[in-house]
């Protein structure tokens, strides 16, 4: 009894990750400043209003912060019970894309427009998968070691992955969704071997794919590049050769990074933002490097590293498996997007449209990312300090 009381007394002390909150708020603010710098030129030309993108992003950010507060305040265990519904709801939004609600921008049909607000279902699905997989793994418990459980989780992840890939033709989002589930599964499953095998398999397939595409291109020689994914791979390997078309964006991004120097040209002084179409989307990191230099770019990478480190701490101190898995999912999401985005921008991997969390322009993305951060903060809030010690 006494022990219990003692515990109750100590439970009052909650751990709340202010560092994480501060980091996120800083990234948001930094993102808005950079967004204005990058997008004002194009916004001015297209809409006659340099702050066009900034205004929309500020509204989305405000909404996201409200969502974050909700996610922080409402006990995350609620999501354990609602997980299946969240999952189904998120998949339903994807199914709406082929209907009349779907919207096409820049030739890609990936958006829904409801009441004048456009939403990207892929971002909703990411959150849905995080919550559902976490709940599923928690429910399976020890049984996670079984092959059957492994298959179930992979299946649960594969459904939205395939849906996103087939309906929206958005491979990068599909990869990230599957990646999130894979990361969560990897964390929950004590085994190692199958994951090492999985990674090796992916690498081998990738290498083979690249080799085949290269071979094909050589035999075709100048008869057009065929499928755009293939051409992106070719452009990745030799950006200069495809400078006018496929690797135009990548190459211009590289020019931006290269021309920035150590400390950059100064905020707002980018030249390349006039060359790069929609620089505020995927290529925003290259403009940051151009304006703020290698130093600025590395600082941003370090900030993301710190953010992930906070997630790591919250996850490893989470009060229960569900909480820990939620945080792991968010962490995996953030890590995958940051790494893929910067890898694309630096032409380390072939071009695929991944946005940089909190910095790139995109309303849905920032709203759901903030909701995810809210979940992490929620988990941190429910971490009892005593247990930590």
């Amino acid at each position, binding site marked *: 009894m006494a022990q219990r009381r003692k515990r109750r007394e100590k439970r009052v002390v909650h751990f709340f990750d202010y560092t994480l909150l501060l980091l996120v708020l800083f990234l948001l603010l930094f993102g808005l400043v950079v967004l204005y710098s990058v997008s004002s030129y194009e916004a001015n030309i297209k809409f006659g209003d340099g702050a066009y993108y900034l205004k929309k992003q500020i509204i989305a950010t405000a909404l996201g912060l409200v969502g974050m507060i909700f996610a922080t305040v409402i006990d995350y265990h609620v999501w354990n019970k609602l997980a299946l519904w969240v999952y189904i709801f998120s998949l339903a939004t994807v199914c709406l894309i082929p209907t009349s609600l779907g919207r096409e921008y820049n030739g890609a049909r990936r958006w829904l427009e409801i009441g004048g607000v456009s939403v990207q279902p892929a971002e909703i699905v990411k959150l849905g998968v995080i919550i559902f997989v976490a709940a599923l793994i928690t429910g399976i418990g020890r049984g996670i070691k079984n092959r059957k459980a492994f298959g179930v989780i992979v299946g649960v992840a594969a459904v939205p992955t395939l849906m996103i890939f087939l309906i929206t033709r958005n491979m990068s989002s599909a990869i990230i969704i599957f990646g999130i589930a894979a990361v969560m599964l990897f964390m929950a499953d004590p085994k190692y071997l199958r994951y090492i095998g999985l990674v090796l398999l992916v690498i081998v397939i990738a290498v083979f794919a690249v080799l085949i595409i290269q071979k094909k291109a050589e035999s075709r020689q100048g008869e057009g590049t065929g499928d755009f994914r293939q051409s992106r791979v070719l452009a990745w390997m030799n950006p200069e050769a495809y400078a006018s078309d496929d690797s135009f964006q990548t190459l211009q991004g590289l020019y931006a990074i290269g021309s*920035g120097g150590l400390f950059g040209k100064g905020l707002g002084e980018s030249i390349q933002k006039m060359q790069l179409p929609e620089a505020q989307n995927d290529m925003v990191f290259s403009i940051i490097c151009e304006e703020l230099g290698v130093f600025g770019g590395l600082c941003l990478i370090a900030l993301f590293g710190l953010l992930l480190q906070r997630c790591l701490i919250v996850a490893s101190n989470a009060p229960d498996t569900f909480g820990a898995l939620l945080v792991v999912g968010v962490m995996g999401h953030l890590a995958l997007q940051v790494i893929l985005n910067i890898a694309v921008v630096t032409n380390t991997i072939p071009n695929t449209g991944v946005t940089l969390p909190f910095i790139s322009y995109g309303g849905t993305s920032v709203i759901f990312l903030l909701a995810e951060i809210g979940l992490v903060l929620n988990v941190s809030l429910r971490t009892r300090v005593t247990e930590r010690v």
Partner: protein
Amino acid sequence: MSNRRRLKRDSRASREERRKREHREKRKLFRSMQQKLIIFFAFVVAALVGLGFRVAYLSHAKGTEYSKQVLMQQRYDSRTLPYKRGEILDANGTKLAYSEKVYNLILDANEITESRKEDALTETMSALSKCFQVDTIELTQYIKENPNSQYYVVKKRIPYEEVDPFLSAKEENASICGVWFEEEYKRQYPNNTLASSVIGFTGTDNNGTYGLEEFYNSTLNGSNGREYGYLSEESTLERTTIPAQDGNTLVTSLDANLQAIVEKYMLEFAAEHRGEYREGEDGVKNMGVIMMNPKTGEIMAMADYPSFDLNDPKNLSTFLSEEEISAMDDKATYDYLNRLWRNYCISDTYEPGSVAKSLTVAAGLDSGKLKGNETYFCGGKMNVSGHEIKCHNHAGHGMVDLSGALEKSCNVALMQIGEQEGKDTLMQYLYNFNIGLKTNVDLSGEARTNTLVYNPENMVASDLAISTFGQGYNVTMIQMISAFCSVINGGKYYEPHVVTQIRDSMGTTIKKIEPRVLKQTISATTSDTMREYLTNVCITGTGVTAVPAGYEIGGKTGTAEKQPRGTGNYVMSFMGFAPADDPQVVIYCVIDEPNVADQPHSTFAQEVVKKILTEALPYLHIYRTRELTEEETEELSSLNLLENPGEPEGEEGQESDAEAESQDGESEGQEGEGDPEGEKKPGSDFAIDPETGYPIDPDTGELLNPNSYSPVDPTSSDLDGLEGVKNDPSQTTDQQGYEPSTNNNDSNSSGVGAGSSIGGDSVDIQYNPDSLRGGNSESSDFGAGAGF
């Protein structure tokens, strides 16, 4: 109980144990998760560090190369932003000329070939053919042959209405690419032919040709703007736009309505006489009308015949048949166009004829050589240093006073006046009237006449004699009307001008061109007297035909025989002003060689003037001062020009009266309205010539002018006396070099140098004083343009 308790305890223990085990399991799972978390995080950090290195590497290894690349691909090119040429407005703000933005369709073949969309070519081509009706087969061929071309002008000067549907099609269809539009301005003349020679036209190069467009070319033109990129000190690219400076707008004193009235009646006259005498030729060789405000020198209307379409100035199809056009070589076409485009009112010279008598009399009065109470006897001819110079009325006018000399347009009286004045006085006054000088009217192409007037030093008696009635020297219409304005407006010679205001592109007036008095040619008293005499001309004299119903006007007729003399070619003219007591408008009509069997009747010009004034004066708010006759009322009603047709009957037919009374004819031509002096009223009992419809004089058997009942046979010209005076048509006016002269014909008698033309194309007659002197020793002087 105990059993149960034990059981309970057992179950509790097992539960405790299970929970413990679960907790252990959980811990184990947690530990494994923490382990994996660390591993995952390590991977992430490794990846981030790797990417960081990649960024650093890119910057370090490729920095210089990429920086160069960035600067290289910047657009330093500059783009010209075209300016808008200023407008030309009439006095009421009606647009006579303006510039409209048009678009050139540019094809970027490279963008289409490089496009990722497979249907880019077909979609773009179908949109182009739909919106612009271009030949897509040809274009596709072009793209195939020049896949890297980035600038190919497909179609020029497309109006915005055609561009707009294409732009919206492009908005909807992402496959349409490689097409853009270049801006340009196109000159538009909404009234097509109206005031064509005065306005002039402007080609694609914003360079005005003829008229206001040429004279005010630099005022109308602005300066092009420019959009360009440059590197600032910090090696950052700056793009700057210097906006185009639009041209200034001209506000003219022309009145489009007046102009239209004038052109309507000129056209009517020309159409009436088309092919009438000279088979297949136009109604007149040349024709010009100027209306001027005598109180300011502002030109209210100015027109020549034929006019041309300013929007399509090179189109000859309205004037010539297709065979004729194809038969012309380049030079012939060029010559024809130059004739068409030039402004007869300022560029062509001619002998003014009797209109100049008003200048001679004004000179005499103002110099004091004439008192105003002189009388002269006209016996029909006069002998001047051996030459017999006839009056147009071979029977003579009898005794005439000064006013009568003008009313009857008596040559003999004028020659006597000339003798009284002396050549120095007359020439001084003609000089004061700007004869021989440019008026500096603000229109391009004004002829120089300084070599086409007499030099007092070389003048002989016969020169003086014929110059009193406006033969022997050449003038332009604008010179004549400007001089005449000063005769009747109190002696003030205003510089004639067309433009009254210059406005900038925002509509702010930046320059006002006020009426400019250049000199006092005669005193105000002399002017009053002249106005009185000239009014008499239109009451009882030769000018009655020109009087519009209900108005009192003044004026002077003119008929000048053209060089070479005796061919029956005349320049008919009438100079009038209205109202007679306070002239608001001066009108001058010149008809060069009307296409009629019998030319020398100033009534041709008078009728045109009458028609114009009948319509123009009410428009100008100049009201009738006399009551209308029944006939006139009917006539006006038929023209819809009468406010209340039921006006009381006017006095007896003014015109017929005047006709009957008028006894003189016109100057040199023996038209003129008058019968021989003192003769009976022209009878209706005259036989009518069945061929011409003219009455036949029962006494002489000559054909008579149906209006004036004066003989019409050109062979009995009053210029008979000038037969010894030979012509040198080779002397031509200086026409600013528009056209090389080609006429060096007919210098038959004296053989005076014929090769001395000065690059004009005027065929205007020239009087050669050398031949009068019977020698050609001084022909070289003449040929050199030393003048008379």
